[in-house]
C-alpha cells in the first residue's frame, strides 16, 4: 500500500518530543517496511530549511538537552528512500528559496497535487 503523507501543521510538540511526531512515525513505519511518501505543505515547508535552530530552553534548573533537528529528520527520510516533496507555492509565499533547503527534495506545484494523489492508495493529511 502506497501512502502519501501531507504534513501541513508544523512544529507540533517538537520541543516536548525532540522531533516532529509525524516525521517520527513515518521513520518508524518505514523501518517496518511501509511505502511512504511525504508532501510538505503550508508552514511545514520550513522543516526542510537547513539554517533553522532552536535556542536553549530551561525551566527552573531543568535544561532541555536535545533540540529538535527537523531538517536532519526530514533528510533522514530522504536517505531512507522516502520521496519527500515540497509545495513550491508554499515556499514562495514564505520567502523561502530552494537553495535554503536540504537536498534530495522534489518541488511540486500546488495545482499538480490533486492528480498526484491519484497515484497513492491512501492519503493521510496530518
Amino acid at each position: 500500500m502506497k501512502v502519501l503523507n501531507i504534513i501541513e501543521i508544523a512544529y507540533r510538540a517538537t520541543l516536548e518530543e525532540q522531533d516532529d511526531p509525524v516525521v517520527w512515525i513515518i521513520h518508524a513505519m518505514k523501518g517496518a517496511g511501509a511505502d511512504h511518501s511525504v508532501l510538505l505543505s503550508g508552514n511545514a515547508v520550513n522543516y526542510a530549511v537547513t539554517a533553522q535552530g532552536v535556542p536553549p530552553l530551561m525551566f527552573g534548573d531543568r535544561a532541555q538537552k536535545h533540540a529538535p533537528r527537523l531538517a536532519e529528520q526530514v533528510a533522514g527520510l530522504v536517505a531512507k528512500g522516502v520521496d519527500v516533496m515540497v509545495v513550491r507555492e508554499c515556499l514562495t509565499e514564505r520567502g523561502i528559496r530552494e537553495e535554503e533547503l536540504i537536498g534530495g527534495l522534489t518541488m511540486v506545484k500546488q495545482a499538480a497535487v490533486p492528480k498526484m494523489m491519484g497515484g497513492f492508495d491512501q492519503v493521510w493529511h496530518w
Partner: protein
Amino acid sequence: MADKKTLTFLLMDAPFENARTTTALRLIDIAARRGYDINVFAYEGAVYLPLAAQAKHANAVHGTDAAEEDHPLPREWVEAVMQEAARNGGKLDWVNCGLCVDERGATESVAGVRRGSPADFWKMASTSDNVLVIPTR
C-alpha cells in the same frame, strides 16, 4: 517585594501534542524567576501535565537509549518551575480540575499539585493582577 505580582494561567492542552504547553511553561518560568505568585488551573487534558507516571524511554528512530534520549517530561518541568518560584520567594499553586482528573483517571500527580474545581479558578482569577487563558484550539 513592592511590585510583586500574582498571575493566573489556565492551561487546557494535553502534553506532547503541540507547542502551547511549552510556551505557557516558559511564561510561567519567567514569572517564577521574578518571584511572582503564580496560579495554574489545569483544565481538561492539561491535568496530564503533572502526571507522576510519565517516564523516559529509549528512541529507536533517534538511535538513543533512555539515558541518551533524556526525553522531556512535563511533570519535571512543572516541578522545576515550582522549585524556581520557591527559590525566588514566590509560590506556584497548581490546581488540577478534579472532574477532568476523574474522567481521565489521571489521579497521581507530582507533589505540590492539588485537586480543585472551577470555583478555585474563579477565586484565583479574582485575586490576580492578570489572567492568561491558553485554551485548546
